[in-house]
């Protein structure tokens, strides 16, 4: 098949997929609106049109953007810390069995303990404004640690032998041999950890109630029975989450492609 025909076929396929997705979303929006009309009680349920109107109002305020920025900054800091420490600990654990053995129960506990328990515990130790930083860190750390450990373990022993023969040591060995195997695991971990850190971080804000954050606005909306705002903030959380995920995924994908294609 000619290349242009291939391309148009591919574009058509992508449009079809997006069309199907949009149709599905439209179906559920219509269903939501119908249910809202049937229930006819704004305290319990508001329709998507009213939520959209409230969201537009919120987006026009400086407080909205300040709150999003505060939540994003704190959760982002915790997430980056979790990723960095997860990678560093995985590297140490892969080199030193004693580190791996020591960390195994800690990582197991971090994965098993419910977020709410952590939130309440951490509130005893840090101020509410730093709570979401710690919670996002706790969410990202074990996921990144586990995946990077797995990627390192999966590194081809034959490639390591080859690196030995050619005298490749230290950072060059990490950069050229390990990185190739670990990157797909790292990318999957970042994608998963990002969503979890964001959701858990917002949940922590709802409990800790730091000023001018998304969590505080969610809590206020619930307390004052302001259901349109509750829905609007929830939509904002979902949109930010989806945008973050898309941006990070694309950035990692582009970096990976550039790295692979370098001469």
């Amino acid at each position, binding site marked *: 098949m000619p290349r242009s025909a291939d391309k148009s076929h591919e574009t058509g396929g992508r449009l079809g997929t997006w069309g199907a997705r949009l149709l599905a979303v439209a179906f559920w929006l219509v269903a939501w609106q119908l249910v809202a009309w049937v229930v006819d009680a704004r305290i319990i349920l508001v329709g998507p049109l009213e939520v959209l109107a409230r969201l537009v109002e919120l987006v026009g305020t400086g407080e909205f953007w300040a709150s999003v920025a505060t939540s994003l900054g704190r959760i982002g800091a915790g997430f980056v810390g979790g990723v960095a420490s997860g990678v560093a600990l995985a590297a140490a654990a892969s080199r030193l069995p004693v580190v791996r053995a020591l960390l195994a129960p800690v990582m197991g506990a971090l994965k098993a303990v419910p977020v709410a328990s952590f939130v309440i515990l951490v509130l005893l130790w840090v101020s509410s404004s730093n709570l979401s930083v710690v919670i996002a860190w706790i969410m990202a750390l074990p996921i990144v640690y586990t995946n990077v450990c797995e990627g390192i373990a999966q590194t*081809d022993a*034959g*490639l390591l*032998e*080859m690196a*030995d*023969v*050619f*005298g*490749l040591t230290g950072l*060059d060995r990490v*950069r*050229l*041999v390990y990185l*190739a195997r670990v990157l797909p695991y790292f990318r999957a971990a970042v994608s998963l950890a990002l969503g979890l850190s964001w959701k858990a971080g917002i949940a922590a804000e709802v409990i800790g109630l730091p000023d001018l954050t998304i969590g505080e606005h969610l809590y206020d909306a619930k307390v004052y029975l302001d259901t349109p705002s509750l829905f609007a903030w929830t939509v904002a959380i979902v949109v930010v989450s989806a945008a973050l995920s898309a941006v990070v995924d694309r950035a990692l994908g582009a970096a990976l492609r550039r790295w*692979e*294609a*370098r*001469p």
Partner: protein
Amino acid sequence: MSGGAFELRRVEKNYGELSVLAGASARFEAGRAHVLMGPSGAGKTTVLRLLAGLETPDAGEVVRPADARLAMTFQDDRLLDNLTATANVRLPHARLRGADLEAFLARERAALVAVGLPVDSRPVRDLSGGQRRRVAILRCVLADADALLFDEPLKGMDEKTVAQVMDYVTPLLAGKTVLWVTHDPREKDLLPDPVLWTVRDGLIFPA
């Protein structure tokens, strides 16, 4: 010019119950090409791996020149699948930067063309088996090494490609210690004045 000789002294090597080398001795003089032939399973690859330091003998001694810089091709290529051909060939030169890097890249590109490989940004996972093998050979011969170890490097290549590869590779072998493992006797004619060895029955004999 390469360093000292490689030597096996009464080397024994077993894999479980299987005895591969049983008191093998040989001295591979520096700066020459040595071709090791023998039937499949005779222990040729084991000899190469011992000389490369990838195996330790169960008995006897393996003597390698101090500070020898090695390069090697393996039977299974051992390329970094997600990198380009040039990035793979450049692997032993990981620290090159700036003008040195540009100069080496130009040399790499000329080498790829000389052995009939495409110069593009595809990762080597997209190359055919024969193309990958040529990349591995280039990585070996373009490494800044004193001793080059080849484990059946031309296996499965057609005669035209072999001629093309050897036209490029042979001048680069001059003055280096070359250990060339093959089961194809025709390959001894591709190297300049090689010392011939036969690996058989757990021993190494001058052929």
